[in-house]
């Protein structure tokens, strides 16, 4: 009686099973391909790397090292190179991310105002993003040249002393940070610009009615609105800077005297120049740990913001 009264119950068990399967099957089918891909391209190499970092493998026979426990890490801790590499990495990562965020946001604010030719200006400001890093670094190499570079020409023209941009401390680090930020800034500009465009006009107008100046409107209305985008850009750029190798390799090669050696530069030198793959993998583990710390910090901040917004 009840079965006929409720058409849902009257369906056969087989039909119900099919329906239940269908509910699971679609997401599973969609997930399977990326999971397999991740397993082969990320998790497996990661496991291999953890193993290699615990061996004394050399480049000539990367898979053939023998297990040495934490010896590689102990050697790193005992040496003087690691603290400097870490300091360089932090300086480079935070410096280029911070500078790119500031430059990109300022550019977005300028382009967001309507003026004649703002489309052209936007295109020009966005162009560094399209230039391959090695090509960009080569152009800057030429501009930073001590004898022929445009910067020193200008300084000399103004009666100053030429600067050894790429071969002296701290200018080498300043130079690579500047070039990296120059490459990142267009991305920041474009993403921030779209965030700025999504600020509802009426909300900005309401703040004017409420007596806010242009600066106050930015601080109290626009900035909170674009902050989540800004945080996301921050973590993306931090991760990107942590693995940036090409610009430093072309411009300074990690020098002078290791002053621009970041983790990736150190990995490359250790694994491929000194051929100590085990040692290089140990460096890489430290790099991954750094990236994970930054990512966790981002997630924590994001979760707190979400909780505050009551979502």
């Amino acid at each position, binding site marked *: 009686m009840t079965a006929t009264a409720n058409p849902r119950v009257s369906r056969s068990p087989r039909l119900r099973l099919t329906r239940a399967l269908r509910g699971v099957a679609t997401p599973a089918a969609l997930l399977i391909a990326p999971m397999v891909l991740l397993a082969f391209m990320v998790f497996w190499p990661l496991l291999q790397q953890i193993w290699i970092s615990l061996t004394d493998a050399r480049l000539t026979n990367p898979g053939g090292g023998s297990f040495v426990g934490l010896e590689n890490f102990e050697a790193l801790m005992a040496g003087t190179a690691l603290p400097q590499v870490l300091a360089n990495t932090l300086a480079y990562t935070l410096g280029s991310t911070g500078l790119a965020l500031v430059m990109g946001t300022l550019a977005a604010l300028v382009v967001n105002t309507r003026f004649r030719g703002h489309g052209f200006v936007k295109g020009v400001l966005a162009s560094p993003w399209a230039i391959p890093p090695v090509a960009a670094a080569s152009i800057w190499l030429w501009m930073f040249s001590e004898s022929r570079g445009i910067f020193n020409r200008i300084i000399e023209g103004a009666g100053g002393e030429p600067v050894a941009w790429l071969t002296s401390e701290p200018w080498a680090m300043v130079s690579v940070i500047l070039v990296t930020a120059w490459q990142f800034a267009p991305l920041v500009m474009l993403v921030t610009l779209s965030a700025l465009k999504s600020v509802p006009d009426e909300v900005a*107008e*309401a703040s*004017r*009615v409420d*007596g806010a*100046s242009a600066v106050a409107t930015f601080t*109290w209305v626009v900035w909170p*609105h674009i902050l989540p985008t800004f945080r996301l850009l921050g973590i993306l750029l931090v991760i990107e800077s942590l693995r940036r190798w090409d610009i430093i390799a072309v411009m300074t090669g990690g020098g002078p005297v290791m002053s621009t050696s970041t983790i990736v530069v150190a990995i490359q030198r250790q694994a491929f120049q000194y051929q100590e793959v085990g040692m290089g993998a140990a460096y890489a583990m430290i790099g991954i740990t750094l990236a994970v710390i930054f990512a966790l910090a981002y997630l924590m901040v994001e979760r707190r913001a979400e909780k505050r917004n009551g*979502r």
Partner: protein
Amino acid sequence: MPQLQFSSVAKSYGDTQVLEPFDASVDSGEFLVLLGPSGCGKSTLLRMIAGLTEITSGELLFDGETVNEWDVRKRDIAFVFQSYALYPQMTVRQNIAFPLVMDRMKPWQHLPILGSIIRSRLMHRPEIAGEVDRIAEQLSLVPYLDRRPGALSGGQRQRVALARSLVRDPSLYLLDEPLSNLDAKLRTQMRVDITALHQKVGKTFVYVTHDQIEAMTMATRIIVMDHGRIQQIGTPDEVYDNPANTFVATFVGSPAMNLISPDIVAAHPTAFEPGIAASGAIVGVRPEHLMLADEGAPGLPVTVEVVERTGAEAIIACQPQGQEGDESRILVRASHTQRRVMGEACVLQLDPAHVSLFDAATGVRVPQTSTVG
């Protein structure tokens, strides 16, 4: 509390004229309603008063002083947006306090972090905290003060928007369709609240709406607009009783004023006053100024098409005999005790004291001293 004066004020975007030049003045303490269908330019006019949209030509004066170039802040206005435009990242308390905090912050204090500290200290000051509490109490917002707008219902958001505009005691209140997002019951209640508020603060209100009921119930004066042109300026009674043209006649009032075409009038000359029948004009009569009599009585012979009972009254749609279609249909507002059935033949009688005549070609009201009386 300024007296507003519009002197040939107009607005155009490039070659498109969205508001034709017009003159008008609004006295201190008036509740002016800008009424018209969407796209008629009423919101543009409101934004021009606020200083959010530039005036293309003409002059807007506050107490005799031209304010065309005045910044929004200098105009000392409150503006309630249709979308409420609340600050989503701020709590209700911070939203309401925002105008007060802005008034008290120095330009250099708007720096991030430092600004937040200063703002939170300002919000604890008794003159700000007290004022926010008082307004919140008045608008029943106390339980929601620490929520964010995202966690509020439409009606609550609307009240927060009102509270934010009230907290600063401005001299001019501008409201852009503030009730359009609310359900019918809440709308009726807020209508009463806003009218009460106007009476209490005694300031000038300019209120934009497309809802003629809102206009009739709240306004001390109405400006009816259509296609960027002012159609009529007058008190609700003037606009209702003496519409300036057929647009106003049909836009104000529900159901709208009946417009009887000159052809029908000519076909039944004995049904109308001699002056009306001879005028060749469109005859406008409100549904409540028509009576249905039994067949055989003097008047316009009609057939009952639809009877709509709304409780206390009935709206009876009739068709003059020999006519068909929506154009010629005439609506009669009758007592619910009137028992008419569909298809019944009756006679329609007009109250000659309440007849409006409109020029058949232009739709403009025709003076009718000779016909009424």
